């Protein structure tokens, strides 16, 4: 573990937090240790009362004059003097110290969760670069703008409704102070068991949800939701009407994503499969292969199927033409930004660095790195061996596929398991891209359906196979005592729970997205006109070229053969 921490970039963040908060507490408790040891060695049988030790520590604490001299070694900053006393006349008491320790724990977890959320938010930039880079230059502004505006649409929708549906019944997380204002889950009783359906508190973050812990979980969950939304923009790029994209994104952020999010993470029925019918620890999706990526991927499939292929993608005989993106450098840099952001995605999903089992964040970070690595290897070797070239865009997709696949199992698997999961994902994304394009005849300019949909489902499945039973976050998961254990480590029932989650993603989420967007097709229309599409969406839809200093060189038209 020490080696892992030393080698990991993430460890620097962790160490910074520990130094900022943890050592303060250690210094406060270290001071009285010496007299206590001395007292134990002395013949006197009694240990001084805690309050006496605290008074002794207060007496030995550096004075203002001492601190005024400076503290270059950092040895006298952060002492008992920094612990607030409830009664200044009585001085610091044991309850004061206990309260401060508790607040330190929550503070560490708040900062950890918020900073990880900030990293995930930055992934929007990566998505924008990847998607725009894989599109033609005539659609660059439109694609960038979809990635930009989806953040606003999603955030607004999540604030007014989505968060309440997803997390309105998610009370009980001790890492963030309990989140007790979020204790309203609408449930039904079937076959003698209670099943959660959706949350009911947190609309507009108003009323009793105006709470520090609720704000932290809102920010973290919001950026996850936005990640799911931006997956769809890639699959539907180069022909999606901007107005329809905006309306569709609002609805997805308000309804589609939060419903499945509640079922998996908000106390809903999927998470209750363990407590209600004894299937493992219930549906387990540590950081969102299913909740985030497969939901995005399923919606992307539904919309891109509906919106049709780009003009020129397919020939009359059904064969496909490659439509090359305009900026491979943006694609690969975007992939690196996404890989960086994933260190917020997966380790951040512990929702804390200071609680039982949360020191596993190092393992989670390494699992994330490894899966991305083997995903890239899988895709590169597959393309190189079968197609003759280490295709750059598929290499990037291999990296992302590995990261997507490890997202659900990252909290439950070993490094070797992560490497295998990533390797499979890297090959799977290549096979899936070919299948979607050539068999289903669905045009996905960036491979989002395969990267996020196919590998999101693979990630969910892999929890049920590779979870090794060593992770124990406070002794239970989803209310079931014990550690999450997959089929290869002896628990087939966890695999059953994961398969039910996959079926829900494919059967319910896909169909819901399909119906919603079919209604939008009727009222708004999904696709731009032929003239707009051929000319490029930048001017007609956005009013400005993505790269105004450059002009197109007209080329022979490539329509259908």
């Amino acid at each position, binding site marked *: 573990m020490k080696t892992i921490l030393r080698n990991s970039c993430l460890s620097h963040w962790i160490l910074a937090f520990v130094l900022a908060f943890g050592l303060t507490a250690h210094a406060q408790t270290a001071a009285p240790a010496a007299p206590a040891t001395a007292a134990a060695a002395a013949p006197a049988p009694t240990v001084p009362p805690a309050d006496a030790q605290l008074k002794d520590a207060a007496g030995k604490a550096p004075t203002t004059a001492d601190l005024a001299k400076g503290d270059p070694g950092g040895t006298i900053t952060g002492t008992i003097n920094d612990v607030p006393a409830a009664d200044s006349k009585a001085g610091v008491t044991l309850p004061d110290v206990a309260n401060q320790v508790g607040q330190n724990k929550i503070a560490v977890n708040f900062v950890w969760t918020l900073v990880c959320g900030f990293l995930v938010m930055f992934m929007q930039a990566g998505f924008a670069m990847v998607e725009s880079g894989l599109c*033609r*230059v005539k659609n660059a502004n439109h694609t960038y703008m979809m990635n930009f505006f989806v953040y606003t649409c999603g955030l607004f929708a999540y604030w*007014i*409704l989505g968060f309440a549906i997803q997390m309105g019944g998610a009370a009980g997380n001790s890492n963030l102070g309990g989140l007790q204002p979020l204790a309203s889950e609408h449930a039904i009783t079937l076959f003698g068991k209670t099943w959660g359906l959706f949350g009911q508190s947190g609309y507009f973050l108003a009323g009793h949800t105006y709470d520090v812990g609720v704000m932290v979980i809102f920010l973290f969950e919001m950026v996850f939701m936005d990640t799911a939304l931006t997956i769809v923009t890639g699959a539907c790029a180069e022909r999606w*009407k*901007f*107005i329809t994209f905006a*309306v569709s994104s*609002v609805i997805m952020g*308000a309804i589609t994503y939060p419903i499945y999010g509640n079922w998996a993470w908000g106390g809903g029925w999927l998470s209750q499969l363990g407590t209600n*019918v004894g*299937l493992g620890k219930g549906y387990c999706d540590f950081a969102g292969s299913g909740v985030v990526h497969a939901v995005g991927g399923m919606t992307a499939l539904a919309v891109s*199927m509906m919106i*049709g*292929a780009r*003009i*020129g*993608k*397919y020939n*009359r005989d059904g064969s496909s033409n490659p439509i*090359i*993106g*305009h900026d491979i450098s943006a694609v690969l840099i975007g992939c690196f930004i996404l890989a960086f952001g994933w260190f917020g995605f997966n380790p951040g999903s512990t929702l804390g660095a200071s609680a039982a089992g949360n020191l596993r964040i190092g393992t989670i970070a390494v699992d994330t790195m490894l899966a991305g690595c083997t995903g890239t290897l899988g895709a590169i070797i597959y393309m190189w061996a079968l197609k003759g070239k280490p295709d750059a865009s598929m290499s990037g997709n291999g990296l992302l596929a590995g990261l997507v696949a490890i997202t659900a199992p990252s909290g439950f698997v070993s490094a070797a398991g992560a490497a295998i999961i990533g390797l499979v994902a890297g090959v799977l994304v290549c096979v899936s891209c070919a299948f979607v394009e050539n068999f*289903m*005849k669905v045009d996905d300019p960036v491979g989002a359906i395969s990267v996020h949909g196919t590998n999101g489902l693979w990630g969910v499945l892999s929890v049920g196979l590779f979870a090794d039973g060593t992770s124990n976050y406070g002794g239970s998961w989803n209310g079931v005592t014990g550690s999450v254990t997959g089929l290869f480590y002896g628990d*087939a*029932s966890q695999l*059953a729970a994961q*398969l*039910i989650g996959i*079926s829900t993603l*494919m*059967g*319910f989420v*896909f*169909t819901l997205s399909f*119906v919603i967007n079919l209604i939008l097709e009727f*009222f*708004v229309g999904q*696709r*731009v*006109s*032929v*003239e707009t*599409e*051929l*000319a*490029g969406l930048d*001017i*007609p839809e*956005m009013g400005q070229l993505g790269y105004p200093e*450059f*002009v*197109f060189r*007209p*080329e*022979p*038209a*490539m329509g*259908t053969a």
Partner: protein
Amino acid sequence: MAANKSQGSYFGLFLGAATVLCAGFAYFGSGTGKALFALGAIAFVGSLFGFLGIKQLEGRTALKPSPEGMKLVGAAICLFGWVVTLTGIHLTSSTGGRIVFALLGIGVTAVGMIYILPAAFNKNAVWKGDSLASEHASIPVAAKTTMEHSR
């Protein structure tokens, strides 16, 4: 039709209506909540019909009518697969049985998702017909992405 003022106005109405609707839903127990809900619902529907009113301005898209019934059947089959999985949870208490039902449900859904729906949408796909680009020969197409500096 490209993006225009009407779209922007109706999108503003859509967002405003959604906000009022959600506020009404959040406080539905009160009279004010019910009033907001009704107001929001009316405005929401109004925004949708506003979109519908300007939809035809878009002009011809590269989509041809496809069999609506086949699409609905495909969606229904996808949903039915999920129902099969859910039914299996209660029909059997054995882990193996539940896995079989889940796999069966996934398989049924996959039939709708992979075979029926793509077939429905591609049945009259525009790429099966005449070249659109040849119909719009005057419009330059950047099929292969190349850029040329203007200076």
